[in-house]
């Protein structure tokens, strides 16, 4: 299928995501102007304010966007999962250029002109309105243009916290190793940035920039109003289904969502959320009603408890401790997605490698790729190296989950820390090394929901319970491969599975 046919097939979704993206950019830029313009003007009146304010705005600018999202999520009012947090972050980023240019634009107005205006008997407000703002306008508009263009880029990352937009395709594409999907998000985003730049540039150069800016602002407000009106959520709250941002999680999220839909629940999907903690926090705060977690992750990562030597103790302990948090751990789906050290088939034969302990003599020369979370987790890299006495020659390369196998197949790295159900393992003759010292706890996939979710949506637990024991490891690997290897859409794969398993009709 050509790229254009691929795009055409997704026309409706693509347009919706682009609209969402544009709304994020427009709303955040408009809000940043509403905050930054008066603040910038205030700085020219109270010059003592200027330095500290610009310093703070500059500092915010240096925070990487994902980190800023991370800071914001736990905050009440501003934070949470979704649009609100994204808007807050985008506004914070947009503030600096607007503040800076408003301040500089007014400060650069010829002193003689300002002096003359004062001597003619203008009040401060008249001087601002009749002299300073008109003369500073081109500089201020340049600031707005920079802010808006940067917002288009930053807004793609907002998909990581469930705010939608074109970044949804980018993240989904990275997670499923699908270049076309990445491009389907990235190219429209780039075009949007160029269009925004050109449009605001035209306003800047227009002979009547005031009128043009006012016109643009008015049409923006109208568009936003329409979009907000159109996007008004239904009064009745839907069940919110979450997932983390890798193929298996997206598939599981889709399965849960479709299963619930077939049982008559209204469902809202917040899939592809950027990390374990995000999902957990979402569940605790009530922004998510259900997602699928892994028992080992819940115990070691979320609860920060030591893993008991008896693997059979893990699920009961998680269930007990989650209950104290108001969360219900349902019965396992039927597969254990343990961490897996994966090597290329030819290396496995040549060296040879069969178990993790076989790595020890080669550790100095092998390059390891993993995703960042694994470095930090208590059941992660540090303990693994200690348990197996491995001394690496070079520090592991951190990369996104979705890029791990690409790097392994391209021989950029030799060992990746993946998971046992990764679909590419069987399809590309990769070998999973046996955890011969039983370092990893079991990672049974379990749906997690909250008591408040059950109260809001009676019957939710019972509906979810029908999935128990229905997905074994082989099935999960096959489904993952259908997405990662054969580039089928996760919703279609999930739907096929549910139908074949007799869970829906």
């Amino acid at each position: 299928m050509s790229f254009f046919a691929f795009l055409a097939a997704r026309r409706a979704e693509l347009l919706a995501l682009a609209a969402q993206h544009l709304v994020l950019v427009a709303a955040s830029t408009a809000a940043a102007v509403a905050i930054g313009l008066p603040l910038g003007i205030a700085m020219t009146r109270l010059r003592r304010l200027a330095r500290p304010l610009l310093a703070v705005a500059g500092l915010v600018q240096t925070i990487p966007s994902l980190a800023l999202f991370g800071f914001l999520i736990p905050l009440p009012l501003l934070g949470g999962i979704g649009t609100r947090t994204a808007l807050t972050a985008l506004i914070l980023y947009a503030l600096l250029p607007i503040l800076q240019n408003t301040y500089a634009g007014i400060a650069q107005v010829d002193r003689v002109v300002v002096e003359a205006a004062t001597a003619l008997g203008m009040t401060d407000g008249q001087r601002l309105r009749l002299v300073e703002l008109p003369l500073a306008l081109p500089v201020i508009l340049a600031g707005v243009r920079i802010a808006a263009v940067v917002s288009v880029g930053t807004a793609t990352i907002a998909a990581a916290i469930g705010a939608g937009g074109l970044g949804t395709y980018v993240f989904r594409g990275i997670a499923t190793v699908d270049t076309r999907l990445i491009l389907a998000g990235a190219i429209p985003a780039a075009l949007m940035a160029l269009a925004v730049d050109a449009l605001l540039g035209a306003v800047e150069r227009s002979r009547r920039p005031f009128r043009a800016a006012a016109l643009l602002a008015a049409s923006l407000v109208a568009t936003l109003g329409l979009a907000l009106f159109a996007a008004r959520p239904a009064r009745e709250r839907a069940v919110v289904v979450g997932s983390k941002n890798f193929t298996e999680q997206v598939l599981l999220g889709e399965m849960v969502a479709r299963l619930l839909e077939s049982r008559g629940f209204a469902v809202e999907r917040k899939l592809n959320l950027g990390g374990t903690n995000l999902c957990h926090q979402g569940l605790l705060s009530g922004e998510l009603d259900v997602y699928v977690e892994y028992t080992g992750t819940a115990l070691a990562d979320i609860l920060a408890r030591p893993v008991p030597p008896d693997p059979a103790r893990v699920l009961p302990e998680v269930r007990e401790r989650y209950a104290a948090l108001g969360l219900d751990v349902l019965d396992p789906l039927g597969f254990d997605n343990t961490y897996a050290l994966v090597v290329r088939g030819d290396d496995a034969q040549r060296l040879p490698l069969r178990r993790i302990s076989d790595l020890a003599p080669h550790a100095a020369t092998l390059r390891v790729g993993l995703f960042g979370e694994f470095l930090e987790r208590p059941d992660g890299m540090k303990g693994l190296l200690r348990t197996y006495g491995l001394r690496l020659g070079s520090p592991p390369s951190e990369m996104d989950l979705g890029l791990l196998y690409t790097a392994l197949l391209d021989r950029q790295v030799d060992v990746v820390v993946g998971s046992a159900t990764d679909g590419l393992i069987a399809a590309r003759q990769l070998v999973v090394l046996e955890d011969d010292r039983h370092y990893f706890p079991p990672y049974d996939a379990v749906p997690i929901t909250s008591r408040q979710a059950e109260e809001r949506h009676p019957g939710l637990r019972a509906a979810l319970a029908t999935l128990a024991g229905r997905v074994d490891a082989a099935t999960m690997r096959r489904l993952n491969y259908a997405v990662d290897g054969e580039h089928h859409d996760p919703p279609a794969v999930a739907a096929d599975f549910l139908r074949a398993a007799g869970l829906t009709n």
Partner: protein
Amino acid sequence: MHKSFGGHAALDGVSLAVAEGRVLVLLGRSGSGKTTALRTVNRMVDPDQGTVTVLGQDSTAWDPIALRRRIGYVIQEGGLLPHLDVGDNVALVPRLLGWDEERRRRRARELLDLVGLPPDRFEAQLPRQLSGGERQRVGLARALAADPPLLLMDEPFGALDPLTRRRMEDEFRALQERLRKTVVLVTHDVPEALRLGDEVAVMDGGRVLQHGPPGEIRDAPREGFVRDFVGAALS
């Protein structure tokens, strides 16, 4: 009056008066305090000690905004607002005073005529399209727009070439014959001061060293700075 800026005395015991309808020239080098003295009149500067009586009232009793709208102000190059056309520049104070548009426009055209700029040609031009002399005329027209009794002029002809300058000075004198405004004019140019002033105050170091009619300054400059300054300019 006394006025210091950061420990430096800009005005060090200045006392001056100008009668209605007369032109007082403040003459001195840059830094002599002449501009600071001028700016006390429309409260762009308030003296640390001493008082200024403007239009029959202590200046501090005036609201500065209302005061400035009753005082015409002309500066070097005109100080025109670069984004407004000539007509709007001239009609600026009437606009601040809330005149309706029709009346403002009539007044602007009248004044452009008065300063020798045909309104049909100049009204819609932007300041950057004008020559230095034309800009200066627009600045003067703007200062006169609301018919203020008092006019402050800070080096009004300072940026002009000698020929244009001379012509502007002549025109200013002719205009003043008709309008009889009370004028305080600041300049560092001795011949200009002697030509335009009904009286001239020579300033240096924040003090008035000699104050009298132009003839007295020219023919009987006081020993010291005044004699050197005037002598150097006229020799």
